[in-house]
């Protein structure tokens, strides 16, 4: 203990330095985040449903930032203020019912509000899709996205894994008339501006994750399952499809492209693909 007592000056300065460093860190985190929001931030939003996701993100960011700043600053203040300088004793105070009840209740209330809002948006995103939505099937494989449109009959042809080959990557049954007009592309997803789309997500081999950063869509593609997501593309343009679940050595190259186009352009493209 003697070694501690003799270095009292050092204890003092190290403690104050900790507080100051903490405050500088808080300032750096706040300024860094403001700076990042100009260049390293959410990709431009291109779907109608994504607005709700972003709103919740910003609300959560506001609340957590406030708590982050307050708690870290307070931690610094307490260390700065109560560093041992004088010989006087610490308080032996170690319980305070009122304080404990209030911070428990405040935390619980804030979290309950966030839970409820999150739950509402989550439920909204999982409502049944509107009738008349465009239907597309996306089948993930190592390391690409097979995109299938049902064609004019609006029915997908039957598939069987035994039929999969280099020329028939999805194993569409040639005997099924519904499959005759199906259009299959690789990594090329075309959607119609302001027209809702239902996407059926499957996988042939391992788990992948269908990630459309601009549309706030992410859904794992799980072999043996078909999971549906739906959304409404709002802004025409080109956007990435990324794989978000580790799927093997080519995980990082599993990139596709979404093109959001007008109805006419879409029809023309689909027609061209069928011929």
């Amino acid at each position, binding site marked *: 203990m003697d070694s501690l007592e003799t270095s009292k000056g050092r204890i003092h300065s190290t403690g104050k330095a900790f507080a100051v460093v903490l405050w500088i860190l808080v300032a750096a985190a706040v300024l860094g985040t403001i700076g990042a929001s100009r260049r390293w931030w959410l990709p431009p939003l291109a779907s109608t449903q994504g607005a709700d996701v972003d709103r919740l993100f910003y609300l959560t960011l506001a609340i957590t930032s406030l708590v982050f700043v307050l708690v870290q600053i307070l931690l610094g203040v307490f260390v700065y203020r109560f560093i041992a300088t004088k010989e006087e004793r610490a308080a032996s105070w170690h319980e305070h019912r009122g304080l404990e009840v209030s911070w428990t209740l405040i935390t619980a209330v804030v979290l309950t509000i966030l839970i409820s809002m999150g739950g509402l948006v989550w439920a909204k995103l999982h409502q049944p899709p509107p009738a008349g939505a465009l239907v597309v099937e996306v089948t993930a494989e190592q390391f690409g996205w097979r995109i299938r449109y049902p064609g004019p009959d609006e029915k997908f042809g039957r598939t069987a894994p035994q039929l999969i080959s280099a020329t028939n990557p999805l194993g569409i049954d040639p005997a099924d008339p519904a499959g005759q007009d199906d259009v299959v592309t690789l990594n090329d997803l075309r959607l119609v501006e302001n027209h809702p789309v239902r996407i059926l997500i499957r996988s042939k081999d391992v788990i992948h994750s269908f990630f459309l950063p601009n549309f706030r869509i992410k859904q*794992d593609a799980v072999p043996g399952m078909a999971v549906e997501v739906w959304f409404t593309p709002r802004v025409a343009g080109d956007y990435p499809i990324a794989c978000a679940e580790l799927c*093997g050595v080519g995980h990082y190259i599993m990139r596709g492209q979404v093109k959001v186009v007008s109805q006419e352009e879409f029809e023309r493209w689909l027609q061209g693909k069928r011929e």
Partner: protein
Amino acid sequence: MSAHQTHTVVAHKESFLRRYIFSQDHKIIGIQYYLTSLFMAVVGGILAMLIRLQLGWPGSSGIRPDAYLAFVTMHGTIMIFFFLTTILTGGFGNFLIPLQIGARDMAFPFLNMLSYWLFPPAIIVLLASFFVSGGAPNSGWTAYPPLSALKEAAPGSGLGQTLWLISLAILIVAFLFGSLNYITTVLTLRTRGMSMMRLPLTIWALFITAILSLLAFPVLLAAAVMLLFDRIAGTSFFLPAGLVVGGKLIPSAGGSPLLWQHLFWFLGHPEVYVLILPPMGFVSDILSTFSRKPIFGYKVMVASISAIGFLSFIVWGHHMFVSGMNPWLGTAFMATTLVIAVPSAIKTFNWLATLYKARITISTPMLFALGFVSLFVTGGLTGIFLGSPTIDIQLHDTYFVVAHFHFVMASAALFGVFAGTYYWFPKMFGRMMSERLGRWHFWLTFLGIYATFFPMHYLGIAGMMRRIYSPLLYPHLQPLQPLNVFISVAAFVLGVSQLIFAFNFFWSLFRGEKAPVNPWRANTLEWTAPSPPPHGNWGETLPTVHRWPYDYSVPDAREDYIPQTVPVAVPGARREV
């Protein structure tokens, strides 16, 4: 129990082998676990540096994609299971439990020795995977099938993955032996007067952690055995029908890839509390000691640790919001996840309140304990984003998650390890560590962690996925490259700074100032035993406990601390518990 309590310290003459290698002394076993885990931290740390080398300079690192994935997988596996879990429960748990409850040893010393001696074989099997054909596994520490189940799916899914599963199974058995021991010891070997509500929070945390391990790890063991069967015995627990990998039809049928995820995360989530509860306990005790003030809200702290322990079993689905699981299940897991934030917040407020009106003395353990609080707050808050399934849609499997768990679980737990090391080193080895080097280590590590992991939030928000070999193939991720270079440089500084710790550790081991019995003027029982304690910990009689461990700055008492062994009737001491 009595057999143990009576076996006192009659001059214990044992061969070197029995004393230091195949020892049944909890302190030696604790130090063995500690040092072996530290070796694994070096391996895991070097892998982290290689990962950052690749991500900083993807074109010119010379690392192949399958090697990169092997590094990612092994870094996570090693740091979580072979470093943090083993050092916290095997290292500190073994060393501290008997010493802090006033026992001569663990309830089952032989089982304890066995537990440690399963650890080196597990390491050998794990590291052997680097040298087999195909290399170490490529499927991440989560090992999701079918990727981890089919040798056709990735180079590392060959023998490397099989070794990984066997290694994990061996280690889990070691954990189970340990957990049984810790629980039994705390329940049955507490010394006279040591009621449950007089236990230091370190022991409460280690006790609840042992219960979590005992209940959660068998589930992973079962899952690992099932996956092993899928790989080598032709079963299909996790494999559905109709898989076509690399143009080849796989003859599997009837399994479900999601089953693995449920089993894995049923362990995986309690596991993060296995890593964070012990540091929470250490930090509570260290904050109190160096604040010279009782821990604020002891009973609520005990209740929070227990509540976190219970709730940790019903939140696993928040890892699976976008897995294809029923969305309504997502809503339920969202609710339980945000509920677990309440006891975590309470603990943070209690730490802050402990500092209020304190008389703080700063030393390296205290710096790391304060750093822990800061890191835990930062990482805890980003958990609120990920616990909400709606926001998780965008952030799941991005660097935001990497940032989150490196703050709340990895760095915070690491700070618990460092705080505990600087604090208990004098008791473990009878010498003090250098304070000057300790401070340097603290500043560089604390700033290094913020500089490395805070910017990862931005990468994640901008959409950079986890576990990608290079982000440069995506035009929208290319602008992030300066940030990735910055993070890599910060990570290298962070990595190199750990050499200061290594030097301090080994230098102090031989050259450190001789430690007094109670260098920090603390109240818990280990500080009444000699530094280092002999076999059996105390002389003829075990200490008797008369009070709780937090009698600091009791008004009118002569000293500003009153050890647990001081009878309440001593003049000047106030009746506290």
